[in-house]
């Protein structure tokens, strides 16, 4: 599709914006209801313990205290479905996480909840509760757990092995001989259960002109969305009504239903605005079940659970920290002939995380090494649960590998941009392990990384800046760096649903979450484009599942723009076809002879066609629908049927390859060599995300994503005391996400704007790739400014840099987590 769009690629104001900037937007915490109770949580003081006894008698005797909720009040998790004719899947190796527990596996894990007439009373009641804990062995640092005799985070073991039906928790201890390398500051590489190999790396290294072997540590970090995961719930007419904070509206409903023990259509979720998620609220949160079940226990009375910032640190999820070691062989021109990438992932205490695996896959994509081996081990720790954080694994890959690229560029005398270009993925570039079914690697739909690098190089002024990079003026030295963040950027197969109402307006129903990305609205611009009708004729309904919302992708992994522009395209096309058919029925002639444009179908208005559709019924007003749409959409269709002409369709468009986006980031940093303080002078990002859907928003997302990655480089911390296994950086000001003053002095953002050939609209997601690009580019720029021995861990705070500068050698280790 050529870029002759009228709406796509144009700036406009999203309809939710006024509410956001005037404070009228209602988040979960803003809701109040008659007789509403408040819940407070009792958190585990220990990183791993068993609750032997709870004495809540004094608390429950307090006036104003209404009830207590324990782990035992939760319904048993439903057994995973048995495939038809198949065997029942094995039970998961660890009991699944629930919102309350009697075996806390990290400090801060909620043990119980108390409901009272107000929070003051609830807090006083919590203080009166006596909990008898039996402390259990714990580990907060993956390397400590791998050492001979190291403690295991869980009784079942310390390491996840296998995947799918073979997933197990095993007891893995490395030997003293394995750890001998640690004394030299290199990451020990013992037995690692996960691996994939592409070609013969030994042969590859033989071809290398330069081999680097580097250890780096990318720390765990909390997601820290500004809105904590507060939730309010009540029951009415046998249904659960839940006001919550989620990234994905439609897909949160089944999750709540499962946690609370309900059918999907017994849950109504209201989540019109969400103050950020970054992967931590993909299908809502476990903690949503607490007010839901407390309310149920108290006969449906509304229950509000406000989550504090400290609680958010514990239950609000985190990125998995990764210890990485990479041995990389380069040819003279910078081409990577061999890469041996070893990763130890801090898995947290619960579900197996895939960041380390993604890091391996993204390394194979980003650098297209001639030969490659990835090895990984995911170690359970008694620290807050991990989950995907914007560019999970991708960002860590950039953090662990891009400093090595900067070093190689310097040693080889190759321009860093050229080094990335010679290794860049292009077209339908392959990545990841060999797929057993095809005996080949998977491949992307389209990569235009060289184009992005060229465009960015010019926009950034790379050549001019290169002239002064590494030079010292006074006490300050500058450096430049570049990195490319790759990541998945789109899924397929979801549903679109829209109504042409009798008043002539087109009402688009969407199950996308309003998590701050604006894709909830942006994707619907496709309707305007397909119907060739001004945007003012469209209304979007979102954020309340009682209103009939279609099955939608989770807003995660940068899927939404790709998946839901496709679904919108399918439903809009369905609308168009049906309107043409209805017009033909009204005025005769062939449907195709009726041009849909500017709110009219041939001579007929949308309103006239809609009224006729209601009259016609059947598929035209939604009383019948296609078979292939999701059951969730079918339920939604029942809600909206009869309200007008209904367009409803599943995205059945073909796709060859897996959708990925790329961002090329360029950074210039300035370091004060007397203090170690530094800042980013200039930052440029060029997005290769297919067709640009909404330029202003693309800028916002690229900028925000870049800052998330930059925050990992600059200041964001996560600190644990090893002796007690408890959090030290528990306050927001300890976590130090980047402030407004850490924003680069100048930021330029652009896009290649080359349509993706495998999707009708041409657009891919932007969420993830700027994160790794931002982190990697800044890290590379620091290497460029300070030389090879500047840092081995993130964030690169002034203390680390100053000791390196001052002693001209590394003074910090990369082998301790959480400091």
């Amino acid at each position: 599709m050529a870029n002759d769009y009228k709406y796509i690629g144009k700036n406009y104001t999203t309809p939710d914006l006024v509410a956001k900037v005037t404070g009228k937007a209602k988040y979960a915490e803003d809701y109040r209801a008659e007789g509403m109770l408040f819940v407070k949580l009792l958190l585990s003081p220990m990183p791993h313990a068993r609750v032997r006894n709870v004495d809540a008698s004094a608390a429950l005797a307090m006036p104003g205290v209404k009830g207590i909720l324990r782990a035992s009040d939760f319904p048993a998790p439903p057994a995973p479905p048995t495939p038809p004719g198949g065997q029942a899947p094995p039970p998961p190796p660890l009991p699944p996480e629930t919102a309350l527990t009697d075996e806390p596996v990290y400090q801060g894990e909620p043990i119980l909840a108390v409901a009272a007439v107000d929070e003051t009373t609830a807090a006083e009641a919590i203080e009166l509760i006596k909990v008898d804990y039996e402390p259990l062995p714990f580990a907060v640092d993956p390397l400590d757990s791998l050492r001979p005799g190291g403690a295991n985070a869980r009784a079942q073991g310390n390491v996840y092995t296998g995947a799918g039906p073979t997933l197990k928790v095993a007891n893995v201890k490395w030997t003293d001989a394995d750890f001998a390398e640690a004394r030299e500051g290199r990451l020990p590489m013992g037995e690692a259960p996960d691996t994939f190999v592409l070609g013969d790396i030994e042969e590859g290294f033989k071809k290398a002109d330069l081999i680097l072997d580097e250890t780096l540590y990318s720390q765990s970090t909390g997601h820290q969305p500004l809105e904590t995961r507060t939730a309010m719930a009540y029951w009415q007419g046998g249904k659960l009504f839940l006001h919550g904070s989620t990234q994905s509206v439609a897909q949160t409903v089944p999750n709540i239903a499962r946690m609370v023990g309900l059918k999907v259509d017994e849950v109504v979720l209201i989540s019109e605005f969400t103050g950020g998620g970054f992967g931590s609220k993909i299908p809502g949160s476990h903690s949503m079940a607490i007010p839901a079940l407390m309310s149920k226990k108290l006969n449906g009375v509304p229950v509000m659970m406000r989550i504090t910032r400290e609680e958010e640190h514990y239950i609000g999820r985190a990125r998995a920290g990764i210890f990485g070691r990479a041995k990389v062989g380069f040819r003279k021109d910078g081409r990577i002939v061999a890469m041996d990438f070893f990763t130890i992932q801090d898995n947290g205490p619960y579900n197996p995380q895939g960041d380390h695996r993604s890091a391996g896959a993204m390394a194979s994509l980003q650098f297209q090494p001639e030969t490659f081996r990835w090895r990984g081990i995911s170690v359970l720790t008694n620290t807050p649960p991990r989950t995907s954080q914007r560019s999970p694994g991708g960002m860590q890959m950039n953090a662990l590998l891009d400093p090595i690229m900067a070093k190689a560029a310097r040693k080889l005398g190759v321009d860093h941009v050229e080094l990335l270009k010679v290794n860049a993925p292009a077209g339908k570039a392959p990545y990841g392990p060999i797929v057993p079914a095809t005996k080949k690697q998977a491949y992307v739909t389209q990569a235009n990384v060289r184009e992005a690098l060229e465009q960015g190089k010019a926009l950034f002024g790379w050549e001019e800046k290169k002239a002064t990079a590494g030079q010292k003026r006074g006490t300050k030295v500058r450096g430049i760096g570049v990195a490319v963040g790759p990541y998945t950027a789109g899924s397929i197969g979801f549903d679109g649903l829209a109504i042409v109402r009798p008043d002539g307006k087109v009402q688009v129903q969407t199950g996308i979450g309003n998590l701050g990305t604006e894709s909830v609205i942006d994707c619907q611009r496709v309707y305007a484009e397909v119907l060739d009708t001004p945007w003012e004729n469209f209304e979007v309904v979102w954020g309340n599942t009682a209103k009939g919302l279609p099955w939608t992708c989770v807003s995660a992994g940068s899927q939404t723009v790709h998946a839901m522009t496709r679904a919108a395209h399918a439903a809009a096309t369905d609308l168009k076809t049906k309107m043409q058919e209805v017009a033909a029925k009204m005025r005769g002639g062939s449907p195709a002879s009726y041009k849909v444009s500017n709110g009219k179908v041939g001579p007929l208005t949308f309103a006239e066609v809609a009224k006729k559709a209601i009259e016609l019924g059947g598929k035209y007003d939604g009383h019948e629908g296609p078979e292939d749409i999701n059951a969730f959409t079918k339920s939604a269709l029942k809600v909206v049927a009869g309200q007008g002409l209904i367009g409803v369709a599943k995205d059945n468009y073909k796709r060859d390859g897996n959708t990925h986006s790329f961002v090329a980031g360029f950074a210039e940093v300035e370091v004060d060599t007397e203090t170690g303080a530094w800042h980013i002078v200039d930052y440029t990002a060029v997005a290769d995300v297919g067709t640009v859907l909404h330029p202003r928003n693309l800028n916002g997302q690229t900028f925000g994503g870049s800052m998330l990655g930059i925050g990992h480089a600059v200041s964001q911390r996560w600190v644990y005391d090893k002796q007690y296994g408890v959090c030290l950086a528990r306050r927001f000001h300890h976590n130090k996400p980047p402030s407004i003053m850490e924003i680069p002095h100048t930021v330029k953002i652009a896009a290649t704007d080359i349509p993706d050939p495998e999707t009708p609209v041409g657009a891919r997601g932007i969420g993830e790739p700027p994160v790794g690009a931002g982190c990697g580019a800044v890290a590379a720029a620091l290497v460029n400014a300070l030389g090879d021995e500047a840092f081995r861990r993130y964030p690169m705070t002034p203390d680390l840099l100053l000791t390196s500068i001052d002693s001209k050698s590394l003074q910090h280790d990369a082998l301790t987590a959480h400091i």
Partner: protein
Amino acid sequence: MGIDFLTRGITPWGQSVFTHISWDLLWVSFFAGVVFLAAHSVYMLLSAHSKRASADVDALEAKLKGLPEKIQRHSLPARLFHWIMAAAMLTLLFTSFLPIVGVKFAWVEWHWMAGLVLAASILYHIIHATFFMDFWSIWVGPKDIPELKSEIMRELGGDTSGPKAAKYPLGNRLYHMAIVVTGIGASATGLFMMKKVQTPFFTRDPYILADTTWSWMYVAHGAAGVALVGLTMAHIYFAIRPEKLWLTKSMLFGFITRRQYLEHHDPTRWRVPGSEPVGGRPSE
């Protein structure tokens, strides 16, 4: 309701532990000491507490012709130990309790340095007493019951033929016993505590012991320290009482006079050169 004898804190895991004894107990010990001193002084004014009658001493003196004029009571090493220990003890008490009563200064280094001196002197003393002194002479046991009885009788004013003191009077030895318990208790726990502060000797590491072990250690250290306040007061009081000055002098100069020896001791129980009678045992 009641007095809180122990101050509580919480561990990082929210478990309640003792941090130390209540410093109110310092005042309890102090006032107990004062009350004892007052009571004792009054009692001393009224009671008989006779030493050996003059005539008897003359008789003994005549009999024990071999006794020298000066009898060594404390060897130089023993005296050095005593005074070093006394200085260390006073430093320890002042450095620990002055800040508690409101005289603020940087006391910790002085305290642990004095503590090291005390611990070293105790160690020295134990070795010295075991190998070079009459180890059992200071000990208290069932065999001392007759002496206790006769001491009580004497204090009540009656003269008695019961045994007089050997080298160390019973009160002296009971006091030594109390000092052994509190002094070793305080210094042993104090040595562990040195792992908790910056010193040139160790890397700080409070995790060598469990939180609860530490909590009892602090209670023991505090209780011993507070007890030592009262004990030290009593000791100084006795040292400066007129009728005990001969003992105090002996701790300074090492000897007592022949007459003092005979007045206060039982030559059969504390044998010194020349205490064997010429021509028979003293009357008993």
